[in-house]
């Protein structure tokens, strides 16, 4: 048991007699108690706690360079995922990244193509892009302000779940990263008919069917 020194002083002031305080101290001593300062208590409470790195800095100096150097054309990745007899896990190992099987596989991809329909009525705004070799998939760049998924956080090997104390802190980190991206995405204003070059990430547990939602991290 740990008693803060300040608490001890309050206890002492409140005590009716010195004898009582002595008794408390003896009792505390016998019970294995340790009197520590407020500073020591804070250090003890913080011991072993990990809050992970700074999300904004990680996005700029970690995620973006990693994404740029690892992105493959989305058509190539989709082709590999949808090939006859393709193993999702094998394609994930070759083209994607996931820390453990508790997370979906995250694929860093480049999207080059002509912008089609743009939906900004939904909070989950998106711009569809016509891409070669996409097969039956429709490619949509997420524009926010709601970004679906945590692929930006989970697709970067520089950040691990074990860098955090618990799931809540890990979530807050991912949320902060997405929030930063949403702010920056305000400069990305694709128009129907224009051509875009985007590096981003999409995530999945299996080969995507239908709409592939890409979170852009680098755009032109």
């Amino acid at each position, binding site marked *: 048991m740990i008693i803060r020194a300040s608490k001890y002083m309050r206890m002492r002031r409140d005590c009716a007699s010195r004898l009582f305080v002595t008794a408390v101290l003896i009792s505390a001593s016998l019970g294995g108690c340790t009197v520590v300062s407020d500073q020591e208590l804070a250090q003890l409470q913080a011991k072993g706690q990990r809050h992970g790195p700074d999300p904004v800095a990680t996005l700029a100096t970690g995620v973006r360079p990693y994404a740029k150097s690892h992105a493959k054309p989305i058509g190539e990745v989709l082709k590999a995922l949808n090939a006859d007899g393709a193993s999702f896990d094998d394609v994930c190992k070759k083209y994607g990244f996931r820390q453990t099987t*508790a*997370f979906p596989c995250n694929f860093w991809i480049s999207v080059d193509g002509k912008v089609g329909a743009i939906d900004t009525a939904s*909070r989950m705004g998106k711009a569809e892009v016509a891409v070669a070799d996409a097969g039956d998939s429709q490619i949509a760049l997420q524009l926010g*302000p709601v970004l679906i998924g945590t692929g930006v956080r989970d697709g970067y090997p520089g950040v691990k779940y074990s860098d955090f*104390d*618990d*799931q*809540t802190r890990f*979530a807050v980190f991912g949320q902060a990263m997405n929030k930063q991206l949403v702010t920056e995405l305000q400069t990305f204003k694709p128009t129907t008919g224009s051509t875009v070059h985007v590096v981003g990430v999409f995530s999945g547990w299996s080969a995507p069917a239908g709409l592939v939602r890409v979170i852009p991290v680098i755009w032109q």
Partner: protein
Amino acid sequence: MLAKWVVSAVCAAVIGSFGMAAHAAAADKGTIAILVNALDNPYYAAEAKGADTRAKALGYKTIVLSHNEDVNKQNELVSLVIGRGVKGIVLDNADSAASVATVQMAKDKGVPVVLINREIPKDGIAIAQLSHNNLQAGSEVAQLFVDTIGESGKYVELTCNLADKNCVTRSQAFHQVLDQFPGLKMVAHQDAKGALLPAKQAMDSILQEHSDIKGVICGNGPVALGAIASLQSAGRKDVVVVGIDGSNDERDAILAGKLKATVMLQAQGIAVHGVNLLDTYLKTGKTGEPERQLSRGILITKTNAAKVKDFDYQGK
């Protein structure tokens, strides 16, 4: 002395009620204690079953006990099994923060503890902390909830048990998604204590005041089933209900069109992995794997509900 008698009586009663007294196995590798929450909850029963079956398969005897989410009882049971000389403990703890001291006590006595389902806020005490990716589970089901009811309208949240950190995490995950849609209004938020009856009662009451809700998002399976029972009684088949857990009852509710979706937590898988790590540790002095590990939840809808059986996903 009296305390010892009480603990022994509690222990004996629990073992008797679950029908799993220490079992002798072919090889004498010692005994592993498996301590979970309430064995009348299908999730915890599946956890216990998974750990028990795996431990016996590896040649251990087992003691399966329930602490009923009571920290004091958990401490008594852990002391008891340590006294009985168990080789290790697989524990779904009663309270994340309050269990640090319990796990530390076991470590100090040289008994390794593997935590399943719930983490504790300290590293280096348990040999492993295996939990479900509750954020992923909560986010996925919340996203499906939005996709189903739309980006505006009124909804209700029934949490499972806010004394349980997993339930808090799930609620946080829900709100990380839902709160990004200003058109979605949470008109009621109630802790249904993780059980069917309190959830039904809460929903009965909420419906009196908010008949215009579009959906109910629930922190676990029994709560979702309680909400469904209430909505069915009120003749409200239009209200969308989603949950998290993935019990057989939820599976059946999905197939019957009463529950829109759930996320199946791999209760048996996490327990089996916990026993495997404990076995490795007992043989080698280390698990060889990271202490904190997450397990994926699987989104269950009508399209894949038939694959759910006893918290195991068939045909992974």
